[in-house]
């Protein structure tokens, strides 16, 4: 036994015991404990195994930087690996498991790696597992991955919910330690909106862990009272259990709130984590400073921790770290720890310091060994003793102890100030990297700016908050505080490492990088700080070098004979601490992964048994199986045949619809299409081909003139938003002088195609006006009344199927009623609902193109539309570039029809076209099939293809090659119109 719970003191509630388990063993802690403090109180010094050498490890810190105590929490879908025990609030039923050990934490076979360690230095894998190359993926990598690890994720879906939220404030204060609280208390006096964020469950930061006093109150009591005051202030929002993880442009900060990570029973109505995006006009970085470990032989044994962490366990959690505690400190922190330990009756056996003089203010009983270092340590799963080396004489002595508090000075936590690319600056006076200059209203204060005394931090927080508010036009006076006389916080020169250590001297605990690894990196030429990081893995993994980076920089500086200033830091990137994928995804999972667009005819189609296909965000009805039909093809064949023989109705509401107004609307449309629109008569529709500036086709559709200065354009479903954006750009940027107004009405209209020889008869029953061929000829487009003027709709005589066809648009809410009425009126005329599959069959049979053909690489000429391109118009988008030689070349891929030579054979889209005698390779490719289907009218497969010299080869026999399946069949190139080539049905 060494660590134990003190009988009184601390901020825990001894009246509320909490049962939890670690590696299956039942243990007890108290409300207010973290998992780490509860483990330590139970004398569980061994909490994890290291990544590479599987060395026994204990708690090193009491906070966010913890590299050793990584545990797995929860079961199944709630499994959470690599959780820092120092950040987990103890709660009933908590079950934690250690990681990277087998069969158990105490007896870990992987520890054999420690014996092999002379061979496992930095770069070992790269040098050793070079050959045979095939072994890397099959043998070496799996073995290495098995041997090293950071817990195993679960494959079971996470049952909990996550969400994101925005917040806006005038002043964001990051961190609620002494600096942050002083800033918040000052800001609370103003009318400005303030958000105070802290990652802890209790606000107060270091005040909760220290024995000092503010305003004649113990620090923790002062913090508690400050929180009461701030909570009552209407202008202050407090976000606890929230870590600001990233700083972005325009002073937007990302923050992760752990909403329900500390509770035993999850409330389904709330997220477990919430990701905040906080937009702040000014921000104060009051993130404090991280204590630096010392690099000496055997500096990783369970029982050793940071001197500041030791004070946290002692003062906040009432846990003594051992019975015979030693201190190794460069700077004042260790001395303070010794004082606090002795005040709690813990025996401090020695204070070892490389400094030449004792700390003057220390009056305790411990033996002071100045001008000395710790060269090595002993003990396996817990620390047993130290080897102390006197710097002057080089003589060594051993000392028994069961715990060690170490301090190598402080590193300001500057990460958030560096996320936008600014670099911190080394300061010899502070023996630390200080934050870069303030940027966009983000300024570091207190410990984060290298200010270490309590009085100075309180003053700094208040002053900077008052200044920030002043910048925003809110004048307040700074909140003032009285403190005890601070120990003069002068930092000694940094002490980077103990020379000639006995055993491994770890620099990066999480990645098992030790002093020799960095030396090797320098010797092998990887002395640049970024290269040394990659070569040794120092500063990688989940803690991202919070404890190790600055020491590594100091060591590199000494090894290369430069200074930390010259070596510089690696790049700071979000996130400061790990963020779950759940929080980043928010609520966008499952059915909410992306929004679903619902056609106004969706419910109508569903009612009639449609099967749906996802088309972008839409679910389009793809076919309507009838009873007895077992195969989709059976339904599609029937639908296509019924349309050609009787009539069909199909939902085409998803097409983009754009209303265009203005006295220059005709001129505008004339410029965006390559064919002429200026003289389109009112009441008529026309097919239009829209080119991009580079001369290739962008989109197609029909545009109708509903009035002299009023047009209605349809686009393809896929390009609806893109075309509107394109038109807005043309109107606002290219031709702002044209009087044109555009608006999307895609959602205002339910649109249905009614096609087939009986289409007119059926529609005549519901349309009030005369729609005979004479009154309503091909391409007529007009407003009509329906069912005795009950509603107004728009009727267009256009056809994608090649049949006598109309498209009827009605206000969306009436879509279902009108479609049902048409189905019912058409019953005697043999009408059927049909879906996009039959629509596709019908259009391929007619040789009509879609985006299967218009794929961004085709010109009007390629599709046989060359004559549509106006030669008279002075200009239109794409005109100039379309004249390029390559776009006019005669050997371009051009549209042609294709069919199998033997009607019993079939082919698929994407197949390639080869000469009959050519070998089946890409080099002999003549083109490819763009669309294909079984034609129920012809009784065999048909297709459209883009083929070199295609139209000139009509009648030629070719090979249709499916390279994926290595199948070839004989085919014949033909005209792309397979049904009614003269268009007689269309004009019926």
């Amino acid at each position, binding site marked *: 036994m060494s660590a134990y719970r003190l009988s009184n003191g601390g901020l825990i509630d001894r009246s509320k015991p909490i049962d939890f388990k670690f590696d299956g063993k039942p243990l007890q802690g108290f409300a207010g404990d973290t998992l780490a403090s509860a483990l330590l109180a139970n004398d569980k010094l061994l909490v994890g195994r290291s990544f590479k050498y599987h060395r026994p490890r204990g708690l090193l810190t009491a906070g966010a930087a913890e590299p050793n105590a990584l545990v797995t929490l929860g079961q199944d879908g709630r499994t959470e690996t690599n959780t820092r025990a120092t950040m987990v609030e103890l709660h009933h039923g908590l079950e934690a498991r250690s990681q990277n050990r087998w069969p158990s934490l105490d007896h870990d076979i992987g520890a054999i790696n420690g014996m092999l360690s002379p061979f496992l230095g930095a770069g070992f894998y790269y040098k050793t597992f070079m050959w045979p190359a095939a072994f890397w993926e099959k043998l070496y990598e799996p073995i290495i991955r098995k041997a090293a690890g950071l817990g195993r994720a679960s494959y079971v879906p996470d049952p909990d919910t996550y969400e994101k*939220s925005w917040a806006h404030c005038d002043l964001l204060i990051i961190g609620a330690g002494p600096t942050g609280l002083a800033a918040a208390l000052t800001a609370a006096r103003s009318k400005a909106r303030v958000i105070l964020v802290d990652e802890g469950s209790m606000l107060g930061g270091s005040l909760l862990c220290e024995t000092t006093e503010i305003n004649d109150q113990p620090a923790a009591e002062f913090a508690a009272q400050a929180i009461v005051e701030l909570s009552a202030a209407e202008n202050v929002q407090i976000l606890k259990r929230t870590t600001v993880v990233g700083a972005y442009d325009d002073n937007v900060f990302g923050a992760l709130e752990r909403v329900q990570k500390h509770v035993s029973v999850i409330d389904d109505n709330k997220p477990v984590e919430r990701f905040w995006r906080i937009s702040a006009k000014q921000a104060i970085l009051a993130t404090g400073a991280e204590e630096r470990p010392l690099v000496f032989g055997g500096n990783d044994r369970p029982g050793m921790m940071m001197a500041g962490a030791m004070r946290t366990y002692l003062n906040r959690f009432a846990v003594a770290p051992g019975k015979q505690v030693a201190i190794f400190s460069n700077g004042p922190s260790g001395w303070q720890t010794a004082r606090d330990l002795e005040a709690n009756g813990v025996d401090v056996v020695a204070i070892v310091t490389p400094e030449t003089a004792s700390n003057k203010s220390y009056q305790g009983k411990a033996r002071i060994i100045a001008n000395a270092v710790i060269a090595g340590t002993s003990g396996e799963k817990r620390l047993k003793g130290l080897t102390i080396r006197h710097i002057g004489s080089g003589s060594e002595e051993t000392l028994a102890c069961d715990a060690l508090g170490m301090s190598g000075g402080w590193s300001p936590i500057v990460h958030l100030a560096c996320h936008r690319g600014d670099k911190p600056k080394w300061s010899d006076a502070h023996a630390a990297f200080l934050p870069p200059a303030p940027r966009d209203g983000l300024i570091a204060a207190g410990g984060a700016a290298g200010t270490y005394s309590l009085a100075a931090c309180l003053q700094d927080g208040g002053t900077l908050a008052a200044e920030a508010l002043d910048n925003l036009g809110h004048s307040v006076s700074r909140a003032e505080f009285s403190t005890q006389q601070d120990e003069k916080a002068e930092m000694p020169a940094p002490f980077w490492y103990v020379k000639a250590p006995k055993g491994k001297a770890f620099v990066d605990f999480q990645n098992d990088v030790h002093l020799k690894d960095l030396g090797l990196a320098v010797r092998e030429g990887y002395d640049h700080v970024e290269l040394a990081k990659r070569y040794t893995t120092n500063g990688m993994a989940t803690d991202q070098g919070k404890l190790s980076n600055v020491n590594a920089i100091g060591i590199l500086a000494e090894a290369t004979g430069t200074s930390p200033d010259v070596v510089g830091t690696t790049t700071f990137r979000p996130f400061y601490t790990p963020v779950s994928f759940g929080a980043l995804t928010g*609520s966008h999972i499952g059915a909410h992964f992306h929004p679903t667009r619902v056609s106004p005819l969706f419910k109508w189609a569903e009612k009639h048994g449609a099967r749906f296909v996802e088309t972008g965000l839409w679910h389009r009805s793809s076919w309507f199986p009838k009873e007895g039909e077992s195969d989709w093809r059976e339904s599609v064949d029937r639908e296509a045949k019924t349309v050609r023989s009787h009539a069909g109705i199909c939902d085409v509401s998803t097409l983009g619809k754009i209303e265009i107004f203005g006295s220059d609307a005709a001129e505008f449309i004339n410029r965006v299409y390559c064919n002429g629109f200026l003289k389109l008569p009112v009441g008529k529709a026309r097919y239009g081909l829209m080119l991009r500036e580079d001369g290739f086709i962008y989109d197609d559709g029909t545009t109708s003139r509903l009035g002299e200065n009023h047009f209605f354009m349809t686009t393809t479903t896929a390009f609806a938003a893109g075309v509107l954006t394109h038109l807005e750009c043309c109107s606002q940027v290219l031709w702002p002088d044209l009087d044109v107004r555009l*608006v999307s009405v895609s959602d205002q209209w339910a649109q249905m195609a009614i096609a087939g020889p009986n289409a007119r008869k059926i529609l005549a*029953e519901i349309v009030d006006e005369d729609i005979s061929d004479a009154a309503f000829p091909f391409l007529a487009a007009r407003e009509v009344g329906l*069912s005795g003027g009950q509603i107004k709709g728009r009727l267009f005589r256009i056809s994608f199927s090649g049949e006598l066809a109309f498209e009827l648009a009605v206000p*969306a*809410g009436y879509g279902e009623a009108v479609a049902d009425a048409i189905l019912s009126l058409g019953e005697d005329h043999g009408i059927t609902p049909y879906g996009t599959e039959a629509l596709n069959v019908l259009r391929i049979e007619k040789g009509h193109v879609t985006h299967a053909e218009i794929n961004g690489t085709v010109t009007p000429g390629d599709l046989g539309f060359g004559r549509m391109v106006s030669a008279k118009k002075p200009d239109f988008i794409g005109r100039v570039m379309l004249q390029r030689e390559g776009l006019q070349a005669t050997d371009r891929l051009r549209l042609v029809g294709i069919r199998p030579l033997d009607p019993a054979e079939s082919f698929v889209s994407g197949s390639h076209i080869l000469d009959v005698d050519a070998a089946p390779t890409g080099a002999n490719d003549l083109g490819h099939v763009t669309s294909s289907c079984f034609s129920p009218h012809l009784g065999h497969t048909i297709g459209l293809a883009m083929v070199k010299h295609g139209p000139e080869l009509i009648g030629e026999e070719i090979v249709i090659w499916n390279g994926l399946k290595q199948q070839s069949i004989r085919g014949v190139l033909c005209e792309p119109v397979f049904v009614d080539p003269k268009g007689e049905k269309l004009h019926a």
Partner: protein
Amino acid sequence: MLEVQLSAKPALFGAAEGLFGTKDASTAGIVLTASTQSTILQVLSPPGATGVAEKLQAWVGAEGAGLRPNGPGNWFVVCDAQPPRESLEALSKTLEGRAELLDQSHGRTRIKVSGPKVTQMLAKGTAIDLREHQFAPGQSAPTLFGHISAQLTRVSPENFEILVLSSFALSLWDSLIVMGREFGIQAHC
């Protein structure tokens, strides 16, 4: 010609209704209401047209309707019910030569969101700063709710209105319920 009675169904027909996250309507922090009988008109005026906003303001004032600026020369006019024909004709006449008037009653769906927790809930969707002095009653702006584009208006301190493309209405409705569950939400459409 057969007698066919045509009736309209709103985009939110059959959407989820009831209490979510609470069993007691009196504790619901959010009330979600689909305004299915609304008339929604879009007004488009060319650059340089004068007096359009004033004329619209006068009309909505007289009709008890709402005006939602959507962009330069672009407004939505929203009415809880169908305004009288004469009144619409008068509006049309007033705007003649100045602006186009377009019916979007079916193209947009109007959702009212209210309650003491409304700004907290809406902050889960929109990046707009909803503090009252930043986004005061009467203010309106196009924004994104997650992946869905919508027009958000503050009607009064705790009453907001969302205008969304009707094809997205059901998706947005479901998302709003998810966002509101934490506060207890009552949804009716």
